[in-house]
């Protein structure tokens, strides 16, 4: 019986890509001369399982290529060869190459073999160079054996019912290969038309060239079991492969080696390989169908991605569903009883429990979508290594907070902007080692990626200790581009903000300012599309920090319902520090009508919500209202509301989908009674109210000074 192997393809691809990621990560840990055997083993194992898998599924191009890779790794592992930087680079390139091959195969396309052949040749050159030197006696024996041996031509033409007798030609071929060096050609001219094709019959026949020192009976012995079911001819012929020592070495490790350049050479694994052969014969007819299938599959791939979830998360979900079922059973039992005082109490208790269970379940389901940010971070060591080599800079990459969890959809969209920012830091931010030494800095520059949670947001900082933004040049460039006027009096922060303007993204305007600007507007746009923000702080000669702020998840939030006049708003619970009644004696006025409350050595600016949102009929007396102290972007403000209502979880709905962005509002939700309520966006509110970020107005510089104690 034949098994449809294609059902395992997805698993194979997923595992292989994971294996490649692991290889890449370990390769980056390798330092020539200081390699430890565990690392090499990990790389070797990954390469080996990719080779094994691709061999099983008939992806010859991949298995061939990983074979040479594996041979090299094997020699390094056995200590026969010393690892050099060149090897690491070559191995890294081959990881990319295998990734490309697998990607093409996954999309059901013909993989481009030019790169793999080139790399393979380089591997073989390394391996070949080695074999000519007398390093391993074993290899020499193989070579000498090959030279003394005779070559046999074996024609093997089985009857169609070969498989039904329980014979597997592949086993025979491996046995043959054990005798010496084997080259196999398969002939598929006997394959009938597709309609008459019986997948359980064998239509192939093979020709072998076996170079061996063993006598002929050893060969015929292998075919003993199929003598009656096949035409077998064994003939000795001239030494065909006498000088081909390289191949000899190849096949000593992997019996049936195929050359991708010779498409006739085949290793049929089972009948499904035959089916493939046959498909090739009728390929012309179905080609159009196939391409469209490949296209549709490609389209599917982009939308339907899978997610790997830790078993502990799944277990806890199952537990919770179990509890839910128990609660449900309890409730229905109560429902069957007659209604009495005590059954109502039990019912209420049951409902509380149900609410509890539902909430736990919901939290856990949301957690499934959360993945550690190391999924994004892990690609940067490689990127930094390659880029810094190219730029001749010495860079140390520090990763902090890799375990910070983030919604998967957000993560996928975060990766590109981050790559851009890191590349910018390397290219334009960090100086060359000479410049750094001249400036009295460590010649090795540092790029730090730092991720942490803050309120309902995840914050990712990309810091470099390079030369920082050149404010003067940005300013003059902005004037030249007409973005600002000569007369505009801009603070340093405002000037630095200019790099996010679309006009700054043209290539030539960037190369001569301190860099920073190629597509920065795109970075900002991408991040804003995720409801996030990106900012830059920089000090000339000291470094720059790009800060990305993103909402953790896009679906549900804990909200505090508040009343302002007749309107109900929702404040994200996570940003609320405390709610209090105002002690009028501690309120003082600062500057342009801004009121601040002195609260335990901190000055909290008071924002009147009704004022900002232009609502009539709210309570205006400070002592009759409530102040909700919220924290955003590391500083606190107080929101004046009429009353606090319930706390509840709300499902975030988009207001923008059918309307437009509203300042100070992050979204909307539907309350229990079906009415719409708006969710307050604290940082948007701060901007709306005219309280600017620290540094840009005098007022806040003062406040900042008051708040300087550790947050």
């Amino acid at each position, binding site marked *: 019986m034949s098994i449809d192997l294609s059902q395992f393809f997805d698993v194979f691809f997923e595992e292989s890509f994971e294996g490649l990621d692991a290889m890449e990560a370990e390769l980056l840990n390798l330092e020539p001369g200081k390699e430890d055997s565990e690392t090499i083993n990990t790389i070797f194992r990954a390469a080996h399982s990719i080779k094994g898998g691709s061999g099983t599924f008939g992806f010859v191009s991949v298995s061939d290529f990983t074979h040479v890779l594996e041979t090299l790794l094997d020699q390094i592992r056995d200590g026969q060869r010393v690892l050099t930087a060149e090897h690491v680079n070559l191995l890294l390139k081959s990881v990319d190459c295998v990734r490309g091959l697998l990607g093409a195969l996954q999309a059901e396309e013909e993989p481009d073999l030019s790169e793999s052949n080139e790399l393979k040749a380089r591997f073989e050159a390394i391996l070949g160079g080695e074999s000519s030197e007398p390093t391993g006696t074993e290899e020499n024996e193989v070579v000498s054996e090959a030279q003394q041996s005779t070559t046999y031509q074996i024609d093997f033409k089985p009857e169609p019912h070969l498989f039904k007798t329980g014979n597997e030609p592949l086993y025979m071929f491996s046995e043959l290969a054990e005798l010496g060096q084997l080259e196999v050609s398969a002939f598929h001219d006997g394959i009938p038309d597709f309609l008459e094709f019986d997948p359980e019959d064998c239509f192939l026949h093979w020709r072998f060239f076996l170079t061996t020192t063993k006598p002929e009976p050893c060969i015929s012995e292998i075919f003993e079991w199929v003598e009656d079911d096949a035409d077998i001819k064994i003939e000795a012929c001239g030494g065909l492969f006498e000088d081909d020592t390289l191949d000899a070495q190849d096949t000593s490790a992997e019996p049936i080696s195929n050359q991708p350049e010779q498409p006739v050479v085949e290793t049929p694994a089972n009948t499904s390989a035959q089916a493939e052969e046959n498909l090739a014969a009728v390929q012309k007819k179905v080609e159009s169908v196939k391409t469209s299938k490949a296209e549709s599959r490609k389209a599917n791939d982009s939308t339907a991605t899978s997610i790997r979830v830790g078993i502990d998360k799944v277990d806890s979900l199952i537990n919770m569903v179990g509890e839910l079922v128990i609660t449900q059973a309890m409730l229905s039992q109560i429902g069957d009883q007659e209604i009495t005082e005590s059954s109502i109490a039990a019912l209420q208790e049951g409902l509380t429990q149900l609410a509890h269970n539902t909430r736990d379940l919901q939290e856990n389901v949301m957690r499934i979508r959360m993945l550690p940010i190391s999924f994004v971070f892990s690609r940067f060591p490689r990127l930094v290594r390659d880029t810094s080599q190219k730029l001749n800079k010495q860079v140390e990459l520090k990763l902090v907070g890799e375990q910070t969890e983030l919604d998967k959809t957000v993560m996928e969209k975060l990766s590109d902007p981050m790559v851009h920012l890191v590349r910018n830091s390397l290219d334009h931010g960090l100086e060359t080692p000479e410049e750094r030494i001249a400036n009295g800095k460590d010649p090795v520059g540092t790029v730090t990626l730092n991720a942490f949670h803050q309120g309902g947001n995840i914050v990712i900082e990309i810091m470099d200790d390079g030369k920082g933004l050149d404010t003067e040049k940005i300013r003059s460039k902005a004037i030249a581009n007409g973005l600002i006027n000569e007369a505009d009096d801009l603070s340093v922060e405002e000037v630095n903000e200019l790099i996010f303007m679309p006009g700054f993204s043209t290539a030539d305007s960037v190369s001569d300012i301190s860099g920073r600007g190629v597509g920065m507007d795109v970075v900002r746009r991408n991040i804003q599309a995720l409801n996030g923000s990106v900012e830059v702080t920089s000090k000339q000669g000291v470094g720059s920090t790009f800060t990305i702020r993103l909402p953790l998840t896009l679906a549900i939030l804990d909200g505090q319902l508040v009343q302002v006049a007749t*309107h*109900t708003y929702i404040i994200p619970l996570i940003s609320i520090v405390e709610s209090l009644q105002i002690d009028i004696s501690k309120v003082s006025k600062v500057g342009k009508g801004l009121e601040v409350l002195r609260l335990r050595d901190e000055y909290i600016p008071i924002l009147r919500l009704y004022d*900002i*949102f*232009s*609502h009539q009929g709210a309570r205006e007396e400070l002592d009759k209202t409530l102040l909700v102290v919220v924290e955003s972007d590391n500083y606190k403000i107080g929101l004046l509301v009429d009353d606090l209502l319930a706390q509840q979880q709300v499902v975030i*709905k*988009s*207001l923008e*989908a*059918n*309307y*437009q962005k*509203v*300042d*100070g*509002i992050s979204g*909307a939700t*539907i309350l229990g009674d*079906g*009415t*719409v*309520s*708006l969710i307050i966006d604290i940082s948007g509110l701060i901007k709306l109210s005219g309280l600017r970020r620290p540094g840009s107005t005098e007022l806040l510089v003062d406040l900042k000074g008051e708040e300087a104690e550790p947050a």
Partner: protein
Amino acid sequence: MIDQVEVNQQLMFDGESDEKQFLTFMMHDEEYGMDILAVQEIRGWEPVTTIPNSPNFVRGAMNLRGTIVPIIDLRMRFGISAIDYGPLTVVIVVSVQIKEQQKIMGLVVDAVSDVYSIAEEKAKDVPDFQDSDNAYFVHGLVNVGQKMVVLLNLEKVLDLSDKSGLKG
């Protein structure tokens, strides 16, 4: 077989080129019409949630079976004096493509009137209203019996980001 296809095509073609259906509604004793294919449903007026700092013609947002839909008072959009909402006041929920985005919005009008089949070519061009900003919203004028109906260009009426129309 082929004849049938041709006949069908002709029928379709005729149907399309000849007449389009328009839903008409009343506002300030004038009759306005909009393409009926844009209309999703017609609802009675119910209180909405105010959106802060929105233009005065945006009444607020409403929950339409889980979707947040902005409600626009068409009187105010056109600069006609507001009236109190009564039992006849309706919200026409329309779905319109605005800048490559399909948006659902509600329009508050005095009352719905009728559905007319109107041939597109019968619609007359808008006379040159020199002083009226509202001409911008008008797609054409058409006579139905004794009455005149103003056909609206919904894309322009509902494109809130476009300031070239009315100023407040």
